[in-house]
């Protein structure tokens, strides 16, 4: 009996968690597991964590080698997001390993990986699985003798003032990041075949990845613009991953520090790190750029009900609703590049939809003069947004026999000939029979 009561109490205490979990209706993450090498990071990176907490996230800090680590229990994920701020961990504790992290992402959850010069093979392999290759050279750092941050105490030009940001409002927010972002860490490159990964913060052409004090004898494996400093991946299931070569990027020290780029006279009181990291985390945890489409419908012009079939050359109107998640509610999504395809093996019609700015997208077109089973397809992919893929099947039939044109002027001479012959026959029959 007591056991039953405990079980009941446990179930009750889990209910709020279950109701808070990731769902298609509220895509923003709620519970985030933060894995650290050292609890001192909680304090040295507190601005980032405080920002997350103030936005309603539930952070669970654990050491990366905590023997009780687990991402799921009884087949249910305990977290919606994972932050790996443990660059040097060689082996996760508990039931966590690379495969578990990837399963977590494969089931649509989000991931932040931050590395630095101590990055272990484990962290590098997590990144590799996400399509991002860290420099294999141990202790190599990103060095840039042109675009470093001017500093009185840091002379080896490994503190990069990076300002080559991706041009995307949805990823980095509408406010432009004016001040350069301070970066100190290791380089990575994106696999050329990977179309899902994007460089958010890229290096300048004069950058290279090498050990700052050892002599450079062979060409560095990564140079110039091939180096990415911070990348994001949006998987096909809309799971989002951020990979940063620098853990310090998130630290209070870099967020607070003033920055002056070498060779530039403008000095900024505060680096762009705070804005960069916070805006990027908003995107990452689905507070922005998450689209929902539905209510895909079509009617024949002049009618109100959706037909089961169209005839070739019919005029039709097409509607679809698209909304964007703003962090706490669904707002109408406004864009001028949503397109619909009328598709059978290949698109027969591809048209850009116009919007009423209240979430409703609309267009009208004439059904092609080819019959068969068509689909209305909305496949929307935009930089930084989750992709939309909707389709609805609709058959198209040819004209019925009585729907063709009946009185063709060109044929009138033939008709004229027939009918005059008939009239002649009638007269002839009378005359032939009764003439005397």
């Amino acid at each position: 009996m007591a056991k039953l009561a405990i079980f009941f109490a446990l179930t009750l205490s889990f209910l709020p968690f279950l109701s808070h979990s990731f769902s298609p209706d509220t895509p923003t993450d709620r519970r985030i597991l933060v894995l650290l090498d050292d609890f001192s990071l909680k304090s040295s990176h507190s601005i980032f964590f405080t920002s997350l907490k103030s936005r309603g996230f539930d952070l669970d800090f654990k050491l990366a080698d905590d023997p009780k680590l687990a991402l799921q229990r009884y087949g249910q994920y305990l977290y919606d997001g994972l932050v790996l701020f443990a660059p040097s961990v060689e082996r996760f504790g508990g039931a966590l390993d690379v495969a578990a992290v990837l399963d977590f992402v494969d089931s649509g959850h989000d991931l932040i990986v931050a590395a630095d010069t101590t990055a272990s093979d484990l962290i590098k392999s997590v990144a590799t699985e996400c399509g991002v290759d860290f420099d294999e050279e141990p202790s190599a750092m990103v060095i840039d003798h042109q675009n470093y941050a001017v500093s009185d105490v840091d002379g080896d030009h490994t503190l990069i003032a990076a300002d080559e940001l991706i041009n995307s409002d949805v990823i980095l927010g509408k406010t432009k990041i004016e001040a350069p972002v301070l970066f100190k860490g290791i380089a990575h490159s994106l696999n050329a075949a990977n179309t899902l990964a994007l460089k958010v913060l890229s290096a300048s052409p004069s950058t290279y990845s090498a050990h700052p004090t050892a002599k450079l004898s062979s060409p560095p494996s990564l140079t110039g613009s091939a180096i990415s400093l911070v990348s994001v991946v949006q998987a096909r299931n809309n799971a989002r991953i951020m990979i940063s070569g620098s853990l310090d990027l998130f630290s209070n020290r870099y967020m607070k520090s003033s920055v002056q780029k070498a060779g530039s006279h403008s000095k900024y009181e505060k680096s762009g790190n705070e804005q960069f990291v916070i805006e990027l985390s908003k995107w990452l945890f689905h507070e922005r750029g998450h689209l929902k489409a539905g209510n895909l419908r079509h009617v024949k012009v002049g009618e109100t009900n959706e037909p089961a079939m169209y005839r070739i050359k019919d005029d039709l109107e097409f509607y679809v609703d698209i909304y964007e998640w703003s962090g706490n509610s669904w707002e109408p999504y406004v864009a001028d590049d949503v397109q619909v395809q009328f598709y059978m093996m290949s698109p027969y019609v591809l048209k850009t939809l116009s919007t009423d700015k209240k979430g409703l997208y609309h267009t009208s077109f004439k059904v092609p003069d080819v019959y068969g089973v068509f689909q209305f397809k909305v496949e929307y992919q935009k930089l930084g947004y989750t992709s939309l893929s909707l389709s609805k099947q609709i058959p198209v039939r040819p004209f019925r026999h009585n729907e063709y044109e009946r009185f063709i002027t060109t044929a009138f001479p033939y008709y004229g000939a027939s009918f005059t012959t008939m009239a002649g026959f009638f007269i002839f029959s009378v005359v032939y029979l009764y003439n005397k």
Partner: protein
Amino acid sequence: MARSLSGFLAPIVAVALICCSFAAAASIFQPISESHRSAAIETFARSYGSLEETYEALQTFDVLGVERKPDVGTAACQSVSQTLASSSSTLKDIFYALKVNGVLKCEVDTDSVEGIVSTLQTAVGSASSLLEFYHSIGGLVLVKNQALKDDLYLADAEGVFRSIKALSQSDGRWRYSSSNPESSTYAAGSALEALAGVISLSSSEIDQSLIGTTKNDILKLFERVEKYDDGAVYFDGEESDAHGNQGPITSTWSVVTGITSFAAVTSGNLNLPGEKILGLAKFFLGVGIPGDAKDFFNQVDSLACLENNRVAIPLILSLPATVNSLTRKDTLKVKVSTVLGSDAPPLKIKLVRAKDTPAIESQELKFDSANKVHVLDTLEKSVDVGNYIFVFEIVFNDPEHKKAYAVESKTEVPIFLTGAVKVGNAKIAVLDSDLGSIETQNLDFAGENLVSLGANHLQKLKLRFQLTTPLGHPFKPHQAILKLTHESKVDHVFVVGNTGKQFEIVLDFLGLVDKFYYLSGKYEIQLTVGDAVMENSFFRVIGHLDLDLPEAPEKAPRPPVQPADAYSRYGPKAEIAHIFRAPEKRPPQELSLAFLGLTVLPLLGFIIGLLRLGVNLKNFPSAAAPAAFAALFHVGIGSVLLLYVFFWLKLDLFTTLKILGFLGVFLLFVGHRTLSHLASTSSKVKSA
């Protein structure tokens, strides 16, 4: 096993992590500065919940000398007098109320003080756990120090001392209570502070042997200390215990407050090595600016304790700038101060030597009394650009100070001396295989002019340039990279090697065709020369090279795929409009109508012909029945023909055939009657 392994790994991981985050700063620690003060205002800007938080905020502001908002004081004082007057306040509340009072100097009425003192006295008597001792004794000490009550003494001081001491462990750590076997470093700090309180409250001398064993405990505690490579030491936090998660900062703070207050009340030396004290100071300074209010308070409070302790006051040697420009004629400045940034006693700083650089000899730095910094101003004459490790030594003017202060015997500081490097004698040439130069072009890295070269696979490209430092020595930069980028974005990177004074690279295209994937065409030549101490590091496109390589053989490696542009991958596709089948070409309507007219002509001709022949209908039957059948027969034929017209106009095939069936039967019948009648009449005429 896993637990012990993780317990073993955790400090290593932590050390590795922190070492790296400090690697750049090497062993330079900056004392508390202005940025700390502004950060303190930001961190403690929120309203404070408990008295403990209030105390932490006030104490931090007090130590840093930040002016606090006046309204905080009045609100806090109110809360203090409430807590002290209330009989239901816990020991912890009273303890922190007294601490806040210590900072704010509120007005507390004597009645409540009497009550508090008696509460605390009873609490000390009945205390069983360490925290009860800590809070009650701490409270009494605070009452005494704030002179709220005179002649305050602890009745059985030695007994209390012994009962606290009973909680100590052989490894220097302490337990929270006798029933709890778990011990911690944090508890050790609290215990030491409580013991210090007992000593100061005792009316008679405490047994020296007890104090002696406690001093031994402290030494044992320091055997547990963790050490970073840069000399910082700390006490590792307990991963988790009954009293929550205590990180290294909190544990170390507890120990520092404990030993400093213990040292303050006991006579004689604690025998703690100065470098450990300095290491603790380094640890707290190395933390930087913590974001957490608790950590911030622990850091500042510990540094304040270290600033005025009786063991050894740590002095920090710091450099406002370790990157000094020779072109700007920067002077090397060295500052020595206490951890909180106050002035050090009079002393001299010596530059002993520079590691691996015998050219720099030992010299003493000049003291600039106006700015309170020690200056080395003979740099640019004797020292070339480069990165050095300078070794400084602190020598006290007064030898007595050597005991009171903890300093590092030799401080190693990495120094970057930057300067402009002269680039000269830059030439680029395409050579034939027999080394006969075809075209040599001078390069001007400052100008904008680009060279344009052409070469085939039998030729070589040669690039050479010289780098000299301001003092005329050859300079070897860290980064000297030549990059050839094909039109298709395939690039090849080469390190330009140096032979003594000259930098030279020869690209023999014959050996490189495979590496170049047999890609002929235009290559862009980029040269990057850079170094940490080179102020004029440059990245330049030198020009273009038109390379003519042979056709790729079958098995040649394919060039790697280049990443597609992220922006072009997205965006709207070109619209597709369906092209409808064009309607068949038709003659103009007029032509059709004209031909329609023409088709009527034969009928007209036929009718006119009949009229001209003079046809008649005399043969039409005259009898009623045959006449009726004949009329019906022709009406029937007319209906069939009319049916055809309707078929054209609106009827479909099925309706037409149906009607035609009925009409056919009818026509057969009336036709037969009419024709047989006509036949019989004509046979009658013939026979007649």
